[in-house]
């Protein structure tokens, strides 16, 4: 969900992730774009779900990518959150994010699942989308990396 949110904000998200992998020297853990896709496919609500266990090193690498991408995209993440906070004055950023995120979920996730149906239901998904963005906004530092890891391990 976090990676998909980053892809929603960064239109070239998949490429950016791979570039960051190289920059962070994580290519030993996740060598190719296919490896990223395989790791992302371990999410059981995705259409292309693969039954594979994620190793601790891969889990850490994915968090590193999320943290690093959030750092670059922080101004945009903040702008969307601000738009949600002041929805009456400036709803555009939030509306754009919400519609594109919903589209991506419909495209990538198994829409027959009840969980996914809740995710794409505009009446129910606002809080969840906001929480995803807040997670991204709060993970842009080294402390943020630990915070995100704690949240994911306790969710």
């Amino acid at each position, binding site marked *: 969900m976090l990676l998909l949110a980053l892809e929603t904000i960064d239109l070239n998200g998949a490429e950016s992730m791979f570039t960051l992998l190289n920059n962070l020297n994580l290519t030993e853990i996740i060598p190719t774009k296919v490896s990223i896709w395989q790791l992302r496919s371990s999410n059981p609500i995705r259409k292309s779900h693969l039954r594979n*266990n994620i190793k*601790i090193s891969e889990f850490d690498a994915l968090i590193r990518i999320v943290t690093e991408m959030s750092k670059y995209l922080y*101004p945009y993440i*903040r*702008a969307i*959150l*601000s738009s*949600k*906070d*002041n*929805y009456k004055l400036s709803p555009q950023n939030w509306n754009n994010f919400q519609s594109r995120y919903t589209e991506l979920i419909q495209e990538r996730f198994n829409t027959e699942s009840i969980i996914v149906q809740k995710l794409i239901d505009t009446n129910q998904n606002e*809080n969840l989308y*906001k*929480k995803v*963005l*807040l*997670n991204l*906004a*709060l993970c*842009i*530092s*080294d*402390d*943020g990396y630990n*915070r995100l890891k*704690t*949240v*994911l*391990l*306790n*969710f």
Partner: protein
Amino acid sequence: MLQNKYKFNQSSAELVITGLPDYSKSDNPKNISIISNWQLNIIDLPTIEGGIDHLESVLRAFYKYSSLILLEDDEKVESKLIDIIPDQDGLHKVVLKSTKDGIKPLTLRIGNAELSDIINCFDQLNQSENVKLDFYDLLPKFNKTKLKFIKKTNILNIILPPILAFLSISFVSCFLLIFYESSTKQNENISFLINKDRNYRTRMIKM
């Protein structure tokens, strides 16, 4: 004596720390080990300031609150100096209580964007090499994690699943076998009774 001052900025928030180095610990003159004053400036909101006790209390409250929000736990933090409560429209209400008598608490409403700016400012302070503040007690602690990793190096983790599978299969098949045997015996008894009943009836008819 000149005081050192460091600023930590993140979009709408600015944290200013003023203090002195601790020469008794042979500190670098540029460092701050004794915080004498701090200020948190947020755009469109009044300045928050105080001493080291206030800073620790504010840091603890904000860190705890952010963790509670992300974990979807009971999102409410209350302490002697600061309360943070979720407000309507998804905003956050910060109530700052003065230690001096007769001063009313100051209430601020901050959005999610401002909240993340403030937390990121505090993170910068934590990572700063110039300001030495012990964050160990300020960060929220989690005793257990819900998600568990399986260590493949542990031999039990490799052997245990097939043994458990074998035991469960044998237990279920034993149970079904016993059930099958008892049901066949019952059927035999019933057929015996039916035959007995038929013989009795035929005898009656013959008579």
